[in-house]
């Protein structure tokens, strides 16, 4: 795992999410896309670290500290373990994973925020973000694979 490259990527994603994308209502959740990306393309140990780190980054620009970190940590670890059983290398699986993780993370974060008496976001906006993230996610994976220098296995056609 190239941790410096990972830090740069997380930093850029956080700035883009809080800056560039903040002017949009309909926007993807870059942190969740990266969460699924690292859960799929890195080792389980790395996936755990990246999940919590991405959760921390999401909390820095979110409603309160800790909520996203908990949700991302649990979901990222779960995806990483799931990836050991069912390889999520195919785009449709990745779309489903991003969609499900965004929904679950959104609902869990809302629940944790409401327990802390912090303002929550509407469920309709969580759904919109989930759909948008699921569509955009696989396209963001491509530059991420290049940036993280991840070697994907070559599929050879067998005759």
């Amino acid at each position: 795992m190239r941790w410096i490259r990972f830090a740069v990527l997380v930093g850029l994603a956080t700035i883009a999410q809080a800056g560039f994308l903040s002017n949009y209502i309909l926007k993807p959740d870059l942190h969740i896309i990266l969460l699924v990306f690292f859960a799929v393309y890195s080792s389980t140990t790395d996936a755990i670290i990246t999940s919590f780190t991405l959760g921390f980054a999401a909390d820095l620009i979110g409603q309160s500290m800790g909520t996203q970190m908990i949700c991302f940590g649990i979901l990222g670890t779960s995806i990483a373990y799931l990836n050991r059983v069912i390889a999520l290398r195919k785009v449709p699986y990745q779309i489903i994973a991003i969609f499900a993780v965004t929904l679950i993370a959104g609902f869990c974060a809302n629940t944790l925020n409401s327990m802390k008496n912090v303002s929550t976001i509407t469920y309709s906006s969580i759904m919109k973000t989930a759909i948008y993230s699921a569509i955009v996610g696989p396209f963001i994976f491509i530059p991420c694979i290049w940036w993280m220098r991840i070697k994907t296995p070559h599929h050879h056609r067998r005759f």
Partner: protein
Amino acid sequence: MAWTQIKIRIIGNSSKRAGSLSRRMLFIWCMLASVIFYMIPQNSSNKLQLAFAHVFRVPLSASREISISAGAKQQHDDTVPKKQYDELKNRYANLEQQLIKQIKEFRRLSDLNSYVGQNVDYILGDVIPAAADNQHSELTIKCRGTTGLEKGQFVLARNNSIIGRITDIFPQLGTAKVRLITNPDSNTAVQIDGLNKKLYMQGNGDNTAKISMVPKEQDIRIGQQVFALSQPGFIDSDMIIGTISRFKQDDKAPLLWDITVKPAWELEELNEIAVIISKQQKK
């Protein structure tokens, strides 16, 4: 070939056990850190968020500006521009004030109904402050509507005491002139509490009124209440008009009392009034 070798190494028994153990500990420690962050009070965690925003303020603002300059800012469906928001906010504040005023009027009418009786109606109004004429003991009132207003009708103060009678109505302006009981031209039939005798009270023009023709043998005390007598078509029952503030022997007629009455209201404090309209008058 290389891929197969990596797979074999991961699945290897000893490394799997060691790896899973460390992963579990890693997860627990990370989770613990998350819970600690979650448990931190909101004020403290906000500082961390603000610190991030402060440190990265330049790239954050640049990033925001890029999207704005690209014309990518979307119009929120459920929001309005600031100018319209301010306008709506002011309109809401005005409506709220109107509602409060109407609730007050409703309560006042309920109070009046329970106080005077069911055979009368009321028109609520406000005193036009600049029109209050202390010298001539007259004031102008602005009513919600002038339909039903007639000359001679009694006007009540906020404290349910008689302040005077209507002398002029200006339907175009929605106003009416009230001659106060302290006006020298005013002559009101009254009764002193405890005296079973119809008397007449005349204004002095100095914010007091006087009652004459009270024989000296009558027991008069300072503070005794004076009531306007009921008049069919105007008021159904006696209503308080003031209290005796002073009494002395009449200079012109030594066998009579010269009684000064202080109104039950203060001219400066008159702002809300109610005109009593008898239901007989309405018919």
